[in-house]
């Protein structure tokens, strides 16, 4: 793995920014915005972005891996790579999103990866717009990504009962480990409750594909989902 310093970033930025977007080998930010839909159930980017299941991606280019302040769910491996000097650049991010688990075996990013180099270049071109560097930050960028599922304000406003959530969680903990271990099955502790609610409704409405989760979520009421979200949000 290469660990380029800032000089290499600068050289790379010139290379990326100079050619016309969409040309083969270089990313098209507009196409990348569509590719980013695969990411936005966990990551936000843009002016009002905040941390969700994954860290927000403003300023990701040039950021030290595993270092965003306020984000607590980095894997040990990513934090260590950051401490060892890994800064996110086009190559490193490209390698990471091509096959996250190959790049950082203990990563909590539960994503299979993007095989297509053009898709990777596109999404990185899109993300590049939200990283500080000379004259390339849009003043008003599209940030409000649609949710995976349309949920009424009532559902989102439900305050879950943590105790009830703890009882219900026994059905989750057959597979999802409370210590945050996530080999093969994602960790679900410490998720922002809104993300948890959106994810569960996405399974319930079969927008997300996993059959076990569709079945488990399919028979949870709105209140039960809120209760589980409240319970798991409080776990570290």
């Amino acid at each position, binding site marked *: 793995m290469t660990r380029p310093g800032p000089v290499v970033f600068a050289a790379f930025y010139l290379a990326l920014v100079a050619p016309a977007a969409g040309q083969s080998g270089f990313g098209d930010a507009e196409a990348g915005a569509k590719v980013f839909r695969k990411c936005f159930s966990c990551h936000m980017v843009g002016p009002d972005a905040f941390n969700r299941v994954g860290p927000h991606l403003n300023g990701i280019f040039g950021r030290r891996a595993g270092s965003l302040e306020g984000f607590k769910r980095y894997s040990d491996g990513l934090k260590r790579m950051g401490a060892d000097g890994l800064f996110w650049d086009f190559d490193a991010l490209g390698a990471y999103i091509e096959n996250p688990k190959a790049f950082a075996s203990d990563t909590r990013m539960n994503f*299979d990866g993007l095989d297509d180099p053009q898709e990777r270049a596109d999404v990185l071109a899109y993300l590049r717009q939200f990283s500080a560097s000379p004259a390339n930050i849009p003043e008003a960028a599209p940030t409000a990504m649609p949710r995976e599922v349309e949920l009424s304000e009532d559902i989102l406003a439900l305050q879950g009962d943590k105790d*009830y959530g703890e*009882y*219900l969680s*026994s*059905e989750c*903990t*057959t*597979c*999802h*480990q*409370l*210590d945050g*271990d*996530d*080999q*093969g*099955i994602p960790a679900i502790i410490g998720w922002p409750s809104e993300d948890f609610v959106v994810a569960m409704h996405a399974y319930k409405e079969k927008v997300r594909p996993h*059959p*076990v989760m*569709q*079945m*488990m979520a*399919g*028979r949870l009421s709105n209140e039960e989902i809120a209760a589980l979200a409240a319970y798991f949000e409080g776990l570290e």
Partner: protein
Amino acid sequence: MKLNRRHFMAASAGVAATTLAAPHVYAASHGGKPKVVVIGGGAGGATAARYIAKDADGAIDVTLVEPTRTYYTCFFSNLYIGGFRTIESLAHSYGTLASEYGINVIHDYAVGVDRDAKTVTLAGGDTLPYDRLILSPGIDFVDGSVPGWDVTKQNAMPHAYKAGSQTELLKAQIEAMPEGGLFAMVAPPNPYRCPPGPYERVSMVAHLLRDINPTAKILIIDPKEKFSKQGLFEEGWNNNYPGMVERIGPDFGGNNVSVNADEMTVDIDGSVEKVDVCNVIPAMKAGIICEAAGINDGNWAPVSPHTMQSRADENIYVLGDASAQGDMPKSGFSANSQAKVAAMSVRAALTDSKMFPAKYSNTCWSLIDTDNGVKVGASYEATDEKIASVESFISQPGEDAALRKQTYEESIGWYEGISADIFG
């Protein structure tokens, strides 16, 4: 007498001191804290003990009786045969349940239940009083179900359906097969522990033989018309182990089989076959303590779908393989799921904790070949009559390699998850 939590903690310390001083005096009377005795430290019993102890927070005295100090999970034991797991990776001990949850773990056999006196007798001679008894003994074998075989023949013809030394023995026998030899499996009739288990085992034996003895053959002698995940397994055998696996169903005499362990022969509907390894998986019944407790109807112990309480005795709960509950398969996942409902019901009966409606679920993963996992699962609800399937899913034939790999990786995650959920 109503106690708050601080009182319970103090009482608990007192009990611990007494226990240290006189380890064989488990309790003098039924006074004091309510007592739960759990028989069987597998996916059902250990989960129930852990959840009751954890959630009751000292208010209930929990005793777990399990003969073995090291428990080998039956689930994933086929993967040991296939070379994907070590036997050590299937081993679990009871240290955490004892030290972190305050469960009194006794390594002994339960041999009798006096339902009137509400006591359990152990082989070592001790008697344990209970307010609620949870029986999760797993399976035993039905005598005479495969003529010529009984447990005294299990070294010549292993069942390997209780994991541990039997599993190791079976694998050693397969590894010692002569070149081009024959592995035979006598498959069990319904209902039995782990419906896909025999067929996952065939896949894992094939995987092992393909590496070390590729001209060897596998013969399944099966009394059942059809079996769990049949399409998926048969597709896998055809694609990955072509020509290696043959199955004789009941239409060709698979339901009329006897064995001779001295001669190492199998008689299939009158035709005698010499075999090199014979894995006899006999017909099954509830672990014999259920029979001793007099709560069986036929081979299994019927339970209330709402709570897992025995239909014969509301002070007794039956979990997992031993129970007759309806639509759930006999699996570790099912037992773990049922244990949580039972734990909630026990706590509601003995303390003032809340009772919520029962929910059950199950998923069974099977491995066909390297990175080729499949799964089947369902969710269940309690009706008055039975635990009834609500919704189900199954892996599809022809799935791409990436999905099969993901399913396998998920199964590894599940093993870690459920192990932590069972043993703490």
